[in-house]
């Protein structure tokens, strides 16, 4: 009866891959959209099924592997455990929403656009489920390539430069990661890339220190942590909004995920040595990013900097090495994905209708578009992590752990939450209220499709905010493996 479970991970790779490749071939108008929508919805079904049917005690059975490079000891193997399930659920949910946001004929060569989006999904699923370091590296890079093309072809005015910067940054990081992986591979007894062999390795402190930085640089650039963040605001601003949603909603989680799945269990000695300075660096970075967000006039850049602060909090939570914080981080990864996608949906709508995304030029939208405004306020509240929203649960758990780790650090990180209230509420005030002007005069409210998108997102925000139990149950055991070496 376990055969059904074995196929879940394989399905999650194959569905978007086939959907993507099919989309490339379907030049007929609208067909590519239907195919990619179908494949992404099927992914949601598969993830949900895996959450219901695959109990934690089956986690090891929940693997699939194909022989790949025999001579090199690498096999195409995936596993689906609690941590992975949460992120796969997020990935699966974000993509249909992104597809809904894309309007008909909005982009030239729609079939290629959708095809590349699906390939991105395939790459992300692969990163999250990989149970083999070389496979992990492969998907880590592959998720990047379609995004590079999506942003460079369909992005904003300065797209080529911004996207290229993003590409080079992450490419350097991932090459360093590759060296780390190769070094570890040569140390394993059975010459294998499998995650089990890697976990079994006993490295000296000296080796761990070096490898820690090779791995960490890749993850830090991806998250991004200040001072590796300079690619991020430009890339978010210049990428087409659907791609920005994928980037900020799912892709940055690759960094946090990498730390949890690979960095902590592999290099416990180095983590214990360096986690103090790293948390400090992150906390200062959070405040820095929040301060910059306050000064931003561009809606998109504001959201981008606010995202740096939020991701920073998750990274700090991971390095606090506490059970409660780790669970909070995993939950918050999911929540942040939903919340930031919600903010981008609003920003996209406003920019499409008015043609501007400068906060100072907007105003009075609340009177013209009440539905949109309500939604925007809910999303903004979730961004500040107000009680009853999903982010409250997650950030509360993280702060709980951080406080246990060091009250002063928790207080320092807490400043950024206060700052986030300042810039978010300021944004709400200046965009929604005040008097209408020539730009916002003709603003119309959300269409039916957009209301569907809104209600999906709001239902996630409120459900998890009020009744997080089901998701927390899934996450509960997820912190045991990464934190095991520290107990």
């Amino acid at each position, binding site marked *: 009866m376990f055969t059904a479970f074995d196929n879940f991970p394989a399905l999650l790779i194959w569905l978007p891959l086939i959907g993507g490749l099919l989309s490339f071939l379907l030049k007929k108008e609208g067909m590519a959209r239907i195919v990619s929508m179908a494949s992404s919805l099927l992914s949601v079904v598969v993830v949900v099924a895996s959450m219901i049917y695959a109990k934690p005690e089956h986690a090891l059975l929940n693997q699939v592997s194909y022989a790949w490079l025999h001579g090199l000891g690498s096999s195409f193997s995936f596993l689906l455990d609690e941590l992975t399930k949460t992120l796969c659920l997020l990935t699966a949910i974000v993509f249909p929403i992104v597809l809904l946001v894309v309007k008909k004929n909005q982009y030239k060569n729609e079939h290629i656009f959708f095809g590349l989006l699906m390939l991105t999904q395939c790459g992300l699923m692969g990163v999250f489920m990989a149970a083999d370091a070389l496979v992990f590296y492969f998907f880590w890079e592959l998720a990047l390539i379609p995004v590079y093309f999506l942003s460079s072809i369909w992005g904003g005015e300065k797209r080529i430069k911004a996207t290229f910067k993003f*590409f080079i940054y992450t490419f350097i990081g991932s090459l360093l990661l590759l*060296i780390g992986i190769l*070094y570890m591979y040569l140390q394993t007894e059975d010459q294998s890339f499998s995650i089990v062999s890697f976990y079994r390795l006993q490295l000296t402190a000296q080796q761990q220190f070096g490898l820690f930085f090779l791995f960490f640089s890749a993850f830090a650039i991806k998250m991004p942590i200040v001072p590796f963040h300079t690619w991020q605001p430009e890339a978010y601003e210049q990428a087409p909004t659907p791609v920005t949603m994928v980037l900020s909603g799912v892709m940055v989680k690759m960094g946090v995920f990498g730390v949890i799945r690979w960095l902590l269990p592999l290099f416990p000695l180095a983590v214990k040595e360096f986690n103090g300075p790293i948390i400090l660096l992150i906390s200062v970075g959070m405040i820095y990013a929040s301060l910059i967000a306050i000064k931003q006039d561009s809606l998109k850049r504001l959201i981008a900097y606010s995202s740096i602060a939020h991701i920073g909090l998750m990274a700090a939570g991971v390095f606090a090495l506490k059970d409660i914080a780790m669970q909070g981080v995993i939950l918050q990864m999911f929540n942040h994905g939903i919340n930031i996608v919600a903010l981008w949906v609003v920003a996209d709508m406003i920019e499409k209708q008015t043609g501007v995304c400068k906060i100072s030029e907007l105003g009075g939208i609340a009177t013209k578009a009440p539905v949109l405004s309500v939604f925007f306020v809910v999303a903004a509240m979730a961004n500040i992590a107000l009680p009853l929203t999903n982010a409250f649960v997650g950030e509360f758990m993280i702060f709980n752990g951080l406080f246990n780790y060091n009250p002063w650090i928790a207080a320092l990180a807490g400043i950024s939450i206060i700052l986030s209230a300042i810039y978010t509420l300021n944004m709400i005030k200046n965009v929604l209220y005040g008097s209408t002007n020539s730009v916002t005069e003709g603003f119309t409210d959300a269409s039916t499709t957009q209301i569907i998108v809104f209600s999906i997102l709001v239902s996630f925000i409120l459900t998890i905010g009020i009744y997080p139990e089901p998701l927390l149950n899934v996450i509960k055991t997820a912190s045991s493996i990464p934190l095991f070496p520290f107990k």
Partner: protein
Amino acid sequence: MNVIILSAIWGVLMMYVGFITKNKNVPTYVAIAGIILLLVVNWMEYLGMFFFNVDTKGMLEYDSFSLIFNQVILFSTLVYFLLSGSQVSSFKNNVSDLYALIFFIITGISVVAGFKSLLMLFIGIEIISIPLYVLAGSEKSNLKSNEAALKYFLMGAFSTGLMLMGIAFLYGNAGTFMLEGIQIGATEITPMLSIGLILLLCSMSFKVSAAPFHFWTPDVYDGSPTVFTSFMATIVKSAAFFAFFKLFQNAFGNIREEWGILVAIIAVFTLLIGNITAVFQQSFKRMLSYSSIAQAGFMLLGVFAMNSFAKQGLILYFAAYSLATIGIFAVLAKFKDHSIEAFNGFAKQYPLVALGMLICILSLAGIPLTAGFFAKYYMLLGVIEHGNMIWLAIFAVICAAVSVYYYFRVVQAIYFKETTIQADVTFSKPFAYIMLANAGLIIVLGIHPDWLLSYLNI
């Protein structure tokens, strides 16, 4: 052995084709037929079927490493003929002679593939070089081509002189030209041995255009007719690297600790100079010459590591690098304007050719799913396994990241920029399909390099 003799015969045959027919396409077909024949006989030799039995007194010996190398070279030449054949036959006259020269070069490469004696190495390298000087200068009315030929000849002669002198020193030390004899004697280092080694190191660095012996490369590659630059930069360079690796493995493998650091330093300089200079090039052709220096830096890592990973990696590197570069040069050769801007908006005009070219460029940049990734991967694995030199691997990947910068400038021009200059180039349907097939092969090797490497018995 099969290939040496048959390629020499076919070269002579090619010259007669020029007498028999004036049709310019016929030599191309005959050449393609010849290469396919050579591929088959080389494969038969791999399977243990010999057509010729020549007693070389052990000076030539073919193992699976040599034969698979030969196979890679012959296959790359086949792709080269298929893609660039029309360019060769567009020369005003003596088309069949040009093909004949290429076949003679292949003879030389096969000699290099199997050398066990320094004499054979010298003969092989000379057989490769002399036809190349002619090919470099084959555009007689073009001054740059003449300059390139002369420069190449002078530099080549100079480095051959160094090589001969090195060989003489080694002979004086060991009393034999055979690699085994030198290897056994090499366990203790005499001044004569070290002078010989350094001279050979310098001359081989000349041949593979490693820094600081690379100065001839950009001018020669830039000045030569683009079709022959393609051949020089890929197939001939691979052969030179094979000779480099084989010589240092079989003659100086025991004293690797002594010269390893020298090769590492040369590799560092080559990577640095190749990559940094390529960034500033405006001409695509010149950028590719510097990129070939940069790629040579990566291949040098294999010579440095000198383990089984390096051996497999070099074979894969030859295949990946040659296929990709031949593809790119084949497209470039059709352009009169060699600047990167000439490619603006290329994807809109010729989507299939552009896709093939894109995959070639991604492979050169070493992006996963292409053969170029695994080529670099094996080199890094080799260096890391060697131990104590992790910094070299880190340096190499940083240079690889720099290389992405200039390779992707071309990608940006092809895909993201609007057409600025209407280039008057045409690509036939078959050309586009061969480009795509070539790209497909690069991807297949990038997913499953074992399909090639499993034939090596290491």
